[in-house]
C-alpha cells in the first residue's frame, strides 16, 4: 500500500467514526461541532484526492460558515435536544435498500483512480490540454468554472441569492408583526 492509499483509508475511517458518534449524541452543541469536524475531515480527503479548490471551499463553508450558522440557530432554539421516540424500522429499511442499490451500482464502475475510465477520456482531456491555449490561465478548475461552464456559476450565484432573499423574507425585521399562531 502506498502512502496515498493509507491517508485515504484513515481519513475515511475517521469520517465514519465521526458520524457514528454523531448519530448517538444528544447534545446539539456537540452535534454541531462534530458536523464541523466531519466537514474538516472531508476537506482533508479532498486534498488527498487532488481537489484543492473543493477542499478550500469545504473548509471555509462546511467547517466555517455552516458551523457558525448552526451555532446561531441553536442559540435561538436552545441547545438541548428534546428526546422523543425515533422511528427506527422504516428508516433502516429505506437506507438498506438505497445503500444496496448503490453498492450494486459500484460493481460495474471503473476502478478507483483508473486513468482510462470514460470520465477521463471524453471531455476532460480537452480542458486539460487546450485550456492553456483557449483561456490562458493555469488553474483549470477556474477555467472550467468561470468560462467553459460559467453559466452554471451564474446559477450558483442565483442559488445563494435565493437563500439570502429567503432568509430576509422569513426572518427580516418585520417578521415580528405578522406573527404566526
Amino acid at each position, binding site marked *: 500500500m502506498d502512502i496515498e492509499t493509507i491517508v485515504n483509508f484513515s481519513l475515511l475511517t475517521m469520517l465514519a467514526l465521526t458520524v457514528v458518534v454523531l448519530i448517538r449524541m444528544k447534545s446539539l452543541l456537540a452535534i454541531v461541532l462534530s458536523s464541523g469536524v466531519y466537514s474538516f475531515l472531508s476537506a482533508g480527503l479532498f486534498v488527498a484526492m487532488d481537489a484543492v479548490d473543493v477542499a478550500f471551499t469545504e473548509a471555509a463553508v462546511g467547517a466555517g460558515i455552516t458551523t457558525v450558522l448552526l451555532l446561531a440557530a441553536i442559540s*435561538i432554539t436552545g441547545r438541548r435536544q428534546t428526546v422523543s421516540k425515533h422511528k427506527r424500522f422504516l428508516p433502516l429499511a429505506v437506507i438498506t435498500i438505497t445503500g444496496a442499490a448503490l453498492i450494486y451500482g459500484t460493481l460495474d464502475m471503473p476502478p478507483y483512480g483508473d486513468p482510462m475510465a470514460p470520465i477521463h477520456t471524453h471531455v476532460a482531456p480537452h480542458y486539460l490540454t487546450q485550456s492553456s491555449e*483557449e483561456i490562458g490561465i493555469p488553474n483549470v478548475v477556474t477555467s472550467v468554472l468561470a468560462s467553459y461552464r460559467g453559466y452554471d456559476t451564474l446559477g450558483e*450565484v442565483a442559488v445563494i441569492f435565493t437563500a439570502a432573499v429567503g432568509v430576509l423574507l422569513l426572518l427580516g425585521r418585520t417578521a415580528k408583526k405578522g406573527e404566526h399562531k
Partner: protein
Amino acid sequence: MDRRTSLIVREVCRLIIPAVMLFALYVQFHGEYGPGGGFQAGVIFAAAVILYALVHGRQKAQQILPTNTVVRFIVAGILLYAGVGVTTMVMGGNFLDYDVLLHGHQQAQHLGIFLIELGVGITVGAVMIAIFYTLDEFSE
C-alpha cells in the same frame, strides 16, 4: 466574557481581522493561478466581518456596514455577473462569451473571468454577512 479576556481577544482580533481581509483579497485575485476564487474569497471576507461582529457586537459591525448596504452589495454582485453576460450579448457574442469583450482572445477571457469572479465574491460575501446579521437579529 470578563473584561480582561475580552481585551486580549479584541487586541488579537485587531491584528487578525485586517490580515483575514487581505487574505480574502489575495484569494480573490489569485484564483487563476492557485486554488481559490470569488467564492472562497467572499466567504473569507464574510468570516472577517462575522468575527468582528462576534467580538464587538453586531450593532457595531452594522454601524460600519449596515444591512441595507450589504443587500445592495448582494444585488450589485449578481448584476455585475449577469451584466457581463448581457454585455457580451450586446457586443454580438453569445451570453457569457467573453471573447467579444476585447480583441486579444486570451485577454478577453482574462477580463471576463476577472469580472465574473468579482461578482461572485461580492455576492457571496454579502450574502453570508446578511444571513448572519438576520439570524443574529432574530435571536434577540
